[in-house]
């Protein structure tokens, strides 16, 4: 949540005078000389940061990271020779005025070097944390890129900054010639479970019920979000001890040596090396080997040989070496890190089969052949043919379409007694088998979306009311069967049931599913202070009629016009996934329309036609690629997705949407094999020594804390009528936009007709309690007739959603 406090109408005037957002208002440079500026300006001589290469000098840093994005946008509106802050020590000259850069650098450096309580004024003031406050309010929020830039400038001014960063650090975005940030990926709970099972050599449930991880864009394997909490660490401990007990119970068979014949020490040594390699998916380092031998020795002294082994296993299974996969690599020059063969083996294996490398893959890692791209591809193709490859595919589909909730979505048992837990399981099995079949058969996304067949148990076929399939069932009892429709995956019972309400179908949920998961257009939540009660079930109205009435309000219609007409297309499917021709006493009207997309607009009648429309849409193809990339790369951040998206899209199009083409395309990317890379625009290999990979853009996208993707454009403080204070609260934010509520407070003793100007670009999707006009970068808000005037000491509020 972001909160920004108001400034004052004077700012509006100042800003109006410089619509480019560039320089200040002063045109004739009466502050003639850049007094003292050249003295303090770091011109290179003796500047510890001016090491050439990628490290900007203080002056360069000031201009690109402090002046341009912050001072020239926000501060100069008051801090200019004629501005409200003209009597403070920080008076900034407009860009282009004679000596402006030197003068501004000097002035800001002086502020940076002044401290209060050990903290620089340059950090205290704009964040409004100074005891004397900041008249302009909080214009820079802590923990933002802007704040970090100010902090770096302070460090540079104080002489405590160095560009020499740890190896491999720094921007490594693909658009900058890098190959992504060197990272670690904690195993998702499902990956952990499969890894434990591999170590144990038997299936286990351990891990599946662990404390749920942060879900990003619906996916549970986001590398940025997966961390270890106190609770999870305890769950790891508990599970590790249980597995250790199971293995020790079968110790002679597991040990690979005889402690009596070979000697306890030697046997423990051999076991730790062999078992450790299996657990860590790579050979142990000498330090690790020594660490575990010491642990074994200490424990064995009290609990005998087997007790020592038990504790060794329990520790290994809680170790970061087991819980994280590393993508750190080995330095190969120029800031590039090549993933090690064992890292590649894990990356490939978890990508395709969702578990640790098998013996054959480990062998290719051990002898290093996996580093050869042809061998990597060969191994990928081999794993794709493995039955385990289905498990990761299922996981992706479950999370992509949210059907991981199918088993728990509540449904009215009195209305739908037929929806037993067994039927729910059969529905999930149906979808999994169908997807697996399309995938293995070399099928395409279009087939996934428009197939007229599926896989059902006889019970499920009976439940749906379609003829049971012919032929031999698979071990789960599933047979290929005609569905009587041509809408593929989307009308599966699993999807239709998950996206419905306890007592009725839900055009809203189903429309939203298509918008967000197939078209990748995230929808904002409804604005507050609206009556959003779902239309009550009324036998006199069909579901469609109820929802049409409900969304007729113009405030609602803005969003619901995008959602409901798609959802109506599924009205032939009831709340538990069965087809129907009547909705109560009402005939079904499943006609609808896709609106407001790039390439997918059009009318349709029923789910089959909707599916045809989607299957032929490049929007859906691009969205599917993005969804799969989020899952496969475990990221929602541009820095990683950028590295693969173009190649994936090209390959997917080339293969006409063939599902398995994405896996092989990803394996072929540079991102799959490398990390790091300096963000240098200088093609000249300047240094032969250690790369200096620090640079101006060291703040990677931070997704660990917010669970969200990229941040939107910077937003400077709003401008208001005098006497009005404004607080903006971001209610929600998604990739393409955000929703904000704005509280307007009259601080005076007389009523005020208010206006608020907010610097923000985009298309207003929806606004309430206020009207707006817009130019290229600003929104001017005025109240509706009922709240245009705000009483003395009174408040009112309005809100809006904007698409970037």
């Amino acid at each position: 949540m972001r909160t920004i406090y108001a400034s004052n109408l004077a700012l509006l005037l100042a800003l109006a005078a410089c619509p480019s957002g560039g320089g200040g208002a002063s045109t004739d440079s009466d502050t003639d000389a850049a007094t003292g500026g050249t003295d303090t300006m770091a011109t290179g001589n003796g500047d510890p940061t001016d090491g050439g290469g990628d490290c900007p000098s203080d002056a360069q840093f000031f201009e690109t990271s402090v002046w341009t994005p912050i001072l020239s946008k926000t501060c100069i509106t008051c801090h200019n020779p004629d501005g409200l802050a003209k009597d403070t020590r920080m008076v900034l000259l407009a860009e282009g005025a004679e000596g402006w850069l030197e003068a501004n650098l000097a002035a800001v450096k002086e502020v940076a070097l002044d401290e209060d309580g050990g903290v620089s004024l340059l950090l205290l003031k704009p964040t409004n944390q100074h005891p004397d406050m900041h008249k302009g309010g909080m214009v820079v929020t802590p923990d933002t890129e802007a704040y970090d830039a100010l902090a770096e400038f302070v460090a540079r001014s104080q002489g405590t900054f160095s560009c020499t960063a740890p190896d491999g650090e720094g921007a490594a975005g693909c658009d900058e010639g890098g190959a992504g940030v060197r990272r670690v990926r904690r195993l998702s709970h499902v990956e952990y479970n499969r890894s434990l099972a591999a170590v144990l050599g038997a299936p286990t449930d351990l891990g599946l019920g662990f404390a749920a991880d942060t879900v990003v864009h619906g996916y549970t394997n986001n590398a940025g979000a997966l961390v270890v909490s106190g609770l999870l660490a305890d769950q790891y401990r508990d599970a590790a001890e249980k597995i250790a007990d199971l293995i020790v119970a079968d110790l002679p068979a597991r040990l690979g040596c005889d402690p009596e014949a070979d000697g306890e020490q030697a046997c423990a040594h051999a076991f730790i090396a062999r078992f450790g390699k299996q657990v860590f998916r790579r050979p142990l380092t000498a330090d690790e080997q020594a660490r575990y031998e010491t642990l074994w020795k200490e424990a064995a002294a009290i609990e005998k040989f087997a007790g020592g082994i038990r504790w060794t296993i329990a520790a290994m299974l809680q170790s970061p070496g087991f819980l994280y996969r590393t993508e750190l690599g080995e330095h190969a020059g120029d800031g590039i890190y090549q993933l090690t063969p064992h890292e590649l083996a894990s990356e490939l294996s978890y990508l395709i089969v969702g578990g640790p490398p098998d013996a054959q893959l480990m062998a290719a890692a051990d002898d290093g052949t996996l580093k050869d791209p042809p061998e990597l591809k060969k191994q990928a193709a081999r794993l794709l043919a493995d039955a385990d490859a289905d498990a990761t595919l299922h996981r992706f589909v479950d999370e992509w379409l949210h059907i991981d909730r199918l088993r728990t979505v509540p449904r009215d048992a009195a209305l739908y007694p037929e929806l037993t837990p067994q039927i729910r399981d059969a529905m999930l099995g149906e979808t999994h088998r169908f997807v697996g079949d399309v995938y293995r058969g070399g099928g395409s996304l279009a087939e996934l979306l428009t197939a007229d067949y599926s896989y059902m148990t006889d019970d499920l076929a009976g439940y749906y009311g379609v003829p049971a399939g012919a032929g031999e069932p698979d071990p789960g009892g599933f047979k290929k069967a005609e569905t009587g429709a041509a809408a593929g995956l989307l009308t599966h019972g699993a999807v239709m049931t998950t996206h419905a309400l306890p007592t009725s179908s839900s055009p809203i949920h189903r429309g939203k599913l298509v918008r967000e998961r197939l078209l990748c257009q995230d929808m904002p939540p409804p604005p507050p202070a609206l009556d959003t009660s779902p239309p009550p079930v009324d036998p006199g109205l069909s579901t469609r009629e109820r929802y049409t009435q409900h969304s007729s309000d113009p405030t609602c219609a803005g969003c619901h016009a995008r959602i409901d007409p798609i959802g109506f297309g599924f009205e032939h499917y009831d709340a538990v996934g069965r087809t129907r021709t009547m909705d109560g006493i009402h005939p079904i009207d499943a006609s609808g329309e896709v609106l407001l997309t790039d390439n997918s607009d059009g009318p349709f009648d029923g789910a089959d036609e909707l599916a045809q429309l989607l299957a032929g849409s490049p929007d859906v193809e691009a969205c599917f690629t993005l969804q799969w990339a989020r899952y496969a790369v475990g990221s929602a951040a541009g820095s990683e997705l950028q590295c693969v998206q173009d190649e994936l899209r090209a390959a997917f199009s080339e293969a006409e949407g063939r599902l398995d083409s994405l896996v092989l395309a990803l394996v072929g990317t540079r991102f799959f094999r490398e990390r790091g890379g300096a963000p240098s625009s200088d093609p000249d290999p300047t240094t032969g020594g250690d790369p200096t990979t620090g640079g101006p853009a060291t703040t990677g996208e931070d997704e660990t804390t917010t669970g969200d993707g990229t941040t939107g454009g910077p937003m400077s403080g709003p401008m208001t009528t005098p006497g009005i204070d404004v607080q903006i609260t971001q209610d929600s934010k998604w990739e393409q936009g955000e929703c904000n509520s704005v509280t307007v407070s009259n601080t005076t003793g007389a009523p005020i007709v208010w206006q608020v100007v907010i610097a923000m670009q985009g298309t207003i999707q929806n606004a309430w309690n206020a009207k707006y006009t817009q130019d290229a970068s600003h929104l001017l808000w005025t109240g509706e007739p009922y709240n245009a005037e705000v009483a003395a000491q009174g408040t009112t509020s309005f809100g809006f959603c904007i698409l970037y």
Partner: protein
Amino acid sequence: MSIRRRSVLHGLGIGLVAAPFLNLLSAPSSRADGGPTAKRLIVFFSPNGTIPQQWKPSGTETNFSFPPGSILEPLTEIQDQLIVVEGLDFFGADNHEGGMAAMLTASGTASDESGGMSIDQYVAAQIGQDTRFSSLEFGVQTSAWGGGVQTRMSYSGPGAWVTPDDDPMHVYGRLFGDFMGGDEAAAALRARRQRVVDLLVDEATSLRGRLGSEERPKLDAHLDALAKVEKGLMGAVGCGLPDAPMGGGTQDNANFPNITAAQIDMMVAALACDMTRVASLQLSHTVSPTVCSWLGVSEGHHSLSHIDDSNVAGVAQFVECERWMAEQFKYLVQKLAMTPEADMQGSMLDNSVVVWAKEMGDSRLHTCSGVPFVIAGGAGGRWQTGRYLKFAGESHGKLMVSLCQAMGLSNETFGNSMVGNGPLPSLV
């Protein structure tokens, strides 16, 4: 940071077995002078706002009652131990997600006095050093949708969620599992686990050293987690074991009442054993799809919460579910009231503050103004109970300040301080 804390422990030459004595060494740093204080804070959450007309008591501050059929009526029996608070606003927050995020943080950010933490984590960070767990988070079906703004209420910092444990079996093992097999066996087990934690700290530290600054926070979090595990290894002595909970599907809707009861039982037992002094129980989450099927209700709680008054049957179902939530709150409060303190000086409830929080006011409007709170317990005699406090749009951050001060802390702001400082009047 865990590393620093560990070196202090080791530097003092005492192992973890002696750790309970550490509280003799710790100064009551942030405890304020001034009046009696509570010993423990308990947060109880139930989702999807309320229908104010169905919730409101009638009467005055000291002479009030819960109208027949209203949501709070089940609390009549414990009315004397309650402080019912109405009319607080989550300033600047609206809607399900906004409310869930603001409810316990009062919209704090890193630069606020509360550092963007939720009240439970803020209090735990101040008073939790001496107990085996600085706080415990219990959940009932909070996680079918995974972790997200909608499903988490507890924050250890801006955007950093603390995940509740939804599994009573695991809770039992974590809290009470060590006590099987007698004290000596338990001590040996703890010593061995401690040794493993030492090794894990070495390994995590070593991996951390190989990472760039972007990735280090992950291993920092891991090291903190290990520090918590280590602390959790501390034994508690002379403590009664509750019954082990029944197994069963933790996400099975029909199991909701059983899990709730089991979690409350274990929470009270953990508090009685002084394993922690800060605990929370989160019943489902905002936008909860839970169906109160055990009451014969068939529609999901979220849908019911938005039903308008013309749908009389729907409103009645919502009220019925809410009354059930009130019953659970009462069960918790009564259980605390029936448990004497270890020193036999009064009941646990006498020295506790229990807060029933919701994330929205009027659910039909999706607003976070007029959000209802119910407090139980006298905070060690600090507060007179049996009161009904009506405010007109005070910031709920002030209630958070009241709660902090009742816990002996001295902060004058909580969360966004721009919308008010100090405690709520009449909750000083």
